[in-house]
């Protein structure tokens, strides 16, 4: 199969789904363009402020797009390109898109509350504490997985003498320094944003050039692990304006350049998919066997459906929605664009024989080859793509570390939410404990960690779908479109966790096994709690 055909079919299906299924959902949910949104009714021009739909789509997409839609499809390609492709397309249209849009729409109808608040309202404080434990376990998995992926990508192996990792690592370090200088100049020294942006983007490409020409940071994987751990500890405690904000801002230019380069490359080169279309239901890899169901559905998370979208994204976007009809473009459209990124990642691994290494290395190799069709040297393209990938991975890393630190601190707060003076509520201690726990997991490597992270993330999606389903049901609206994905996601996550527990036990990976067991138990308790509360509410409503 030709990759351009795959990309075009994907794009056309997404377009058809957007206009047809999207219209059906809008009608079923009662999207009302004449109804005032919280951005108008609660306007304060700080949090609540109506924004242009296209601008808001850009913000929303930047928030939800990370390294996830790239890593997942590459990891899942062991099943062959066809099942991965089908899951990305079907998942984005019927699962992820519905999930993201439903969460956004529910938030708009709940005065801009985040989906978490909607969950909390329904499940109560006890469930919130359980959820925090669940979230913290998920976060240490994310930190471990992305640290391992980045370290493996930047590592220099003197035996092979391959400089790609060292080049990308050097460029990434220079990029971080550039971002901090950018933040300092714009915020502290009041430099003009437009002029600074032009220089910032030019210097960003200069960092790539410098990294490519003078790859002076040649560290082993262990060396990079240490550097990255120090980095995330610092990044999660430094002021946001100094590093995170300017880096994310400059990152958005990398994202757009990478997407344009990749799509152009596919259109010009039109490579055929060279990996098998399907490798069957059970794929043996080393000592373990991976089953298409459920492992495919937890491995490809962000490219098809991701619970994190509803947590981090919905709290802010919903407060800026100008008109209810815009939620379709932002929630549903944003997820479909992410689906296209995932297809691009699949092409990067599927169209080039013998791709190996970390997901970042595979993705960069594929996209760089495609970009060479319009004159960008492959080696330079690789450094550029790895830089872009690692920038997203680092964003995921320090956001996850911040969340992990916060959740850990909250365990020590009083019942009324006020902070205590205990050592556990200290910001630095909480950061060290979160990162320390992730360091223990690092020894297992990202390939073993990713499926558990995927399961945990997908369960979050299931819970968000549960909240939306209950709200739709309570409002007397059609809720089948969220109920079916919800049941599927619960079935996927629980069976995936069961299989992972079995595999970890067989392999003697006790720590991973314990985490998987804890996630499984917490998931069951959360689902049970939700079901009981909903049942009681229904009986109460009936008796009333």
């Amino acid at each position: 199969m030709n990759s351009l055909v795959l990309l075009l079919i994907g794009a056309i299906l997404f377009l058809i789904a957007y206009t047809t299924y999207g219209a059906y959902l809008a009608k079923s949910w009662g999207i009302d363009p004449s109804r005032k949104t919280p951005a108008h009714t609660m306007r304060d021009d700080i949090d609540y402020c109506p924004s242009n739909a296209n601008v808001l789509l850009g913000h929303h997409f930047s928030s939800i797009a990370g390294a996830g839609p790239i890593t997942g499809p590459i990891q899942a390609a062991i099943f062959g390109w066809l099942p991965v492709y089908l899951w990305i397309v079907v998942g984005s249209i019927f699962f992820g898109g519905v999930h993201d849009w439903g969460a956004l729409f529910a938030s708009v109808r709940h005065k801009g509350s985040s989906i978490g608040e909607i969950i909390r309202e329904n499940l109560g404080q006890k469930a919130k504490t359980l959820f925090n434990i669940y979230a913290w376990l998920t976060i240490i998995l994310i930190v471990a997985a992305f640290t391992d992926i980045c370290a493996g990508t930047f590592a220099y192996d003197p035996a092979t003498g391959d400089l790609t990792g060292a080049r990308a690592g050097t460029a990434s370090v220079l990029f971080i320094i550039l971002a901090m200088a950018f933040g300092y100049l714009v915020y502290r020294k009041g430099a003009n944003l437009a002029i600074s942006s032009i220089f910032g983007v030019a210097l960003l490409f200069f960092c790539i050039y410098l990294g490519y020409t003078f790859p002076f940071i040649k560290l082993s994987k262990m060396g990079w692990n240490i550097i990255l751990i120090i980095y995330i500890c610092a990044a999660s405690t430094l002021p946001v304006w100094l590093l995170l904000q300017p880096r994310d801002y400059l990152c958005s230019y990398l994202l757009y350049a990478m997407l344009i380069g990749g799509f152009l490359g596919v259109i010009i080169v039109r490579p055929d998919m060279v990996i098998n279309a399907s490798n069957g239901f059970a794929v043996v890899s080393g000592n373990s066997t991976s089953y298409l169901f459920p492992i495919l559905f937890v491995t490809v998370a962000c490219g098809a459906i991701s619970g994190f979208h509803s947590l981090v994204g919905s709290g802010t976007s919903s407060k800026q929605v100008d008109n209810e009809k815009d939620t379709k473009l932002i929630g549903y459209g944003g997820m479909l664009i992410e689906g296209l990124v995932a297809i691009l990642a699949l092409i990067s691994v599927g169209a080039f024989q013998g791709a190996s290494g970390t997901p970042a290395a595979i993705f960069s190799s594929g996209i760089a080859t495609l970009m060479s069709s319009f004159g960008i040297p492959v080696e330079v393209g690789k450094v550029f793509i790895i830089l872009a990938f690692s920038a997203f991975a680092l964003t995921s890393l320090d956001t996850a570390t911040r969340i992990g630190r916060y959740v850990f601190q909250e365990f020590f707060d009083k019942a009324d939410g006020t902070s205590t003076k205990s050592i556990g509520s200290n910001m630095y201690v909480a950061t060290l404990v979160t990162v320390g726990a992730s360091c223990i997991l690092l020894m297992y490597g990202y390939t073993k960690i990713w499926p558990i992270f995927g399961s945990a993330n997908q369960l979050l999606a299931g819970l968000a779908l549960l909240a939306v389903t209950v709200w739709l049901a309570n409002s007397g609206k059609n809720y089948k479109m969220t109920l079916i994905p919800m049941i599927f996601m619960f079935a996927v996550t629980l069976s995936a966790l069961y299989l992972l527990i079995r595999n970890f036990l067989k392999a003697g990976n006790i720590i991973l096994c314990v985490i998987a067991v804890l996630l499984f138990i917490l998931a069951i308790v959360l689902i049970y709690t939700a079901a009981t509360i909903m049942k009681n509410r229904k009986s109460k409503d009936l008796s009333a």
Partner: protein
Amino acid sequence: MDSLSYIGNLYDRFSIYYNTSRNVNILNESIDILAQYKDIQGRTLLTQKDIIDSFETNEICYIKKIDNMDISSLTAFTEFLKKAIDTFVQPKRDHMCTYITGVLVTECPLNEDITRFVQKFKYSKSYLFSLHGWSEIRLLVINPDIEKIIANRPGKKVIKFYKF
């Protein structure tokens, strides 16, 4: 436009977004308009209370009508602004910056000495190497009668707001 009408207009303009007060006495200085604004940006996780990261930007504006404008009165006003920084700025981890905007409204002619003084005036303070933020003074002198505004460098960023 005379000074009093201009101050009245300014008050209405401030009232939209700022917490405003008229005729207050601060640090032994009588101020015609006190306007304060606080902007907190951040990300939350589950509920609005679960703040992952945030930073705040503040602006405190002191608008004062002055009848006799000379270098000594200008110096005294800038000393008041510096004192206001020491008294009211609260550096902490989430604090990014506080702008103290001092505006003198006068009908006196603005001579070269005053213009030079204002344009060259610069005062900024960093807290813990900027990790706990910084503060900066914006200084503006306005003559609404002849529709002239003089501002120091940081003040130029807000000059549009004070136009007639």
